C-alpha cells in the first residue's frame, strides 16, 4: 500500500443547525475534533454505535453539511456513496439500464453508444447478467439491487467511495458475496473506501484499518490486527466484547 492520500480530515467539528424563519434556531454539535486520513487503495472501516456521528461524518465528507471548524481535503474528484437500503437507492420509475446510464448522461462527455458500452462493462464487473438491464428495480432481489447501486456509484469512475452500512440490510450469504465484490472492485478499479459499519465482523473481514468512533470523537485508530487483537481503549474493548 502506498502512502498517497485520497482524503484528509483535519480537526473537524460540526453538526446541525435547526430552525426556520419562524422558529428559534438550535444547534447540536455532533462531531468533535475529528482527524484522520484515507490512504490510496485502502479500505478504512468506521465503527461505532448508532447515533455516534458516523453518518454525519460521511455527510460532511460529501459536502452535504459544512463543518464549523477544521478542513476536509479531497485529493480525488467527486467521491460517491453506497447506501444501506438497496430499496431506496434506485429510482423505481426507471429501468436498470436507464439508472446506470444516468450518471454518464449527467457527466455529459460520452455519446449514446459509448454510454451503453460503459454500462455493459460495469454490469460485468458487478457480475450481473445483461437481462437485468431491462428490469425495474422492484423486480430485483436485495443483493442484485445492491450490485446495481454499486455499479451506479462506480460508473463515473470515482476513486473514492463511501459505503454506509452497505451490507447490513442483506442476509448473511449475500453479505459475503457483496463484500467479496467490493474487495475485487477495489483491486480492479484502484479504489479506496470509507466503510461505515456497526458490524465488527464485517469490518474484520473487509477492512485494512479501522477508526473507532464514540460520541462524535475518534477514540482509537489503527490496523485491523491492532484494533481487534490489542485494543487500547475501554470503549473498543466493550464493542469487541459485544460483537463476540
Amino acid at each position: 500500500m502506498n502512502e498517497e492520500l485520497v482524503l484528509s480530515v483535519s480537526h473537524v467539528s460540526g453538526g446541525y443547525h435547526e430552525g426556520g424563519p419562524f422558529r428559534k434556531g438550535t444547534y447540536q454539535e455532533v462531531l468533535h475534533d475529528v482527524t484522520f486520513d484515507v490512504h490510496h487503495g485502502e479500505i478504512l472501516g468506521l465503527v461505532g454505535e448508532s447515533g455516534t456521528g458516523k453518518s454525519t461524518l460521511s455527510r460532511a465528507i460529501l459536502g452535504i453539511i459544512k463543518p464549523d471548524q477544521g478542513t476536509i481535503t479531497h485529493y480525488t474528484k467527486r467521491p460517491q456513496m453506497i447506501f444501506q437500503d438497496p430499496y431506496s437507492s434506485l429510482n423505481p420509475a426507471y429501468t436498470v439500464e436507464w439508472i446506470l446510464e444516468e450518471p454518464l448522461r449527467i457527466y455529459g462527455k460520452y455519446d449514446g453508444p459509448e454510454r451503453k458500452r460503459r454500462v455493459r462493462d460495469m454490469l460485468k464487473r458487478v457480475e450481473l447478467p445483461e437481462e437485468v438491464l431491462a428490469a425495474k428495480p422492484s423486480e430485483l432481489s436485495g443483493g442484485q439491487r445492491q450490485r446495481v447501486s454499486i455499479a451506479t456509484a462506480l460508473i463515473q469512475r470515482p476513486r473514492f467511495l463511501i459505503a454506509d452500512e452497505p451490507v447490513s440490510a442483506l442476509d448473511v450469504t449475500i453479505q459475503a458475496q457483496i463484500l467479496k465484490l467490493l474487495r475485487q472492485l477495489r483491486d480492479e478499479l484502484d479504489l479506496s473506501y470509507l466503510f461505515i459499519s456497526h458490524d465488527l465482523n464485517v469490518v474484520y473481514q473487509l477492512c485494512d484499518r479501522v477508526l473507532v468512533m464514540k460520541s462524535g470523537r475518534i477514540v482509537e485508530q489503527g490496523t485491523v490486527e491492532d484494533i481487534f487483537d490489542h485494543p487500547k481503549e475501554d470503549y473498543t474493548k466493550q464493542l469487541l466484547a459485544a460483537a463476540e
Partner: protein
Amino acid sequence: MKKAKLNGYLKAGLILTAILTVLIILGFFWTPYDPEAMMTGPKLQGPTWQHLMGTDKFGRDIFSRVLRGAGSTFTIAASVVAIGAVCGTAVGALTGYFGGMVDETLMRLNDALTAFPSILLALVIISILGPGKKYNVIVALGLVFIPSFARVTRTAFAALRDVNYVKSVRLMGASNGRILLVHILPNTMSVLLPAITIGFNNAVLAEASMSFLGIGVTPPDASLGYMLSEAQGMFVAAPWYALGTGITIVLLVFGVGLIGEGLQRRNGEVA
C-alpha cells in the same frame, strides 16, 4: 411499482371515459343536426329515433346540442386542470424541494386562497376579467385550481427530496432542474394522477355551476352548464332536455371518478 394491473374501477372508468371522449371528439366535427338550427323537427318532442334526446321549444335537436356542449365543457375542464396541474406542480415542486422562506411564503398564500370557497374566488376573478368569455372562465378556474395541486405535490416532492436515489444523483452532479423533472416528478405520479382526475371532475362541476348561474359560458358558445340553465326554463314542457344534459354531466364525472378511484386503489395495493 409492481407490474401495473388494471382493476375493475380503472377498467370501467377507462371504457366509459373512452366512449364519451370518442363521442365528444365526434361532436366537434359532426352532429346529427346543426346544434343551433331551429325547427329540425317538431318543437318540444320527446326522444325518438330521429331525435335521441328530443327537441327543445325552438325545435333544436338536443342530442346535437349535448354533443357540442359536452365538447365545450370537456375542453374547459381539461384546460383548467392543465393550468392547475402544471402551475400547481411547479409551485409544489419548488416549495417542497427547496423549503425555507419560499416555502413558508407560498404555502401561507396558498392557505389564504384555500380559505375562500373556490366558486366565490372564481366569481371574483371572472368579475375582474369580464364575464361571458370561454377563455376567462378557463383562466379564472385555472387559477383557483392551483392551490390544491400545489399542496398535494409539495408533500410528495418534500418526501422524495432526501430519498437515497435523489441524494445519489445529486452527488453525481445532476442539476436541480434535472432532479426535479427527471428524478422526482415521475415518482409523484401516484399522487398527481388521482389529483388530476378529482380536479377534472371539480372543474366540470364548477364550470357547470358558473354557466348555470350565467357567469360562465354564454351563447353562441354552449356548455352543459349553460344548457342546464336553459333547460330549467322548459323543465315541465321538455324534461328530456334537463335529463339528457344532466345525465351527460353525471356520466362524464362518473367515468373520470372511477379512473381516479381505480388509480388510488392500485396505489394502495402496490404500497
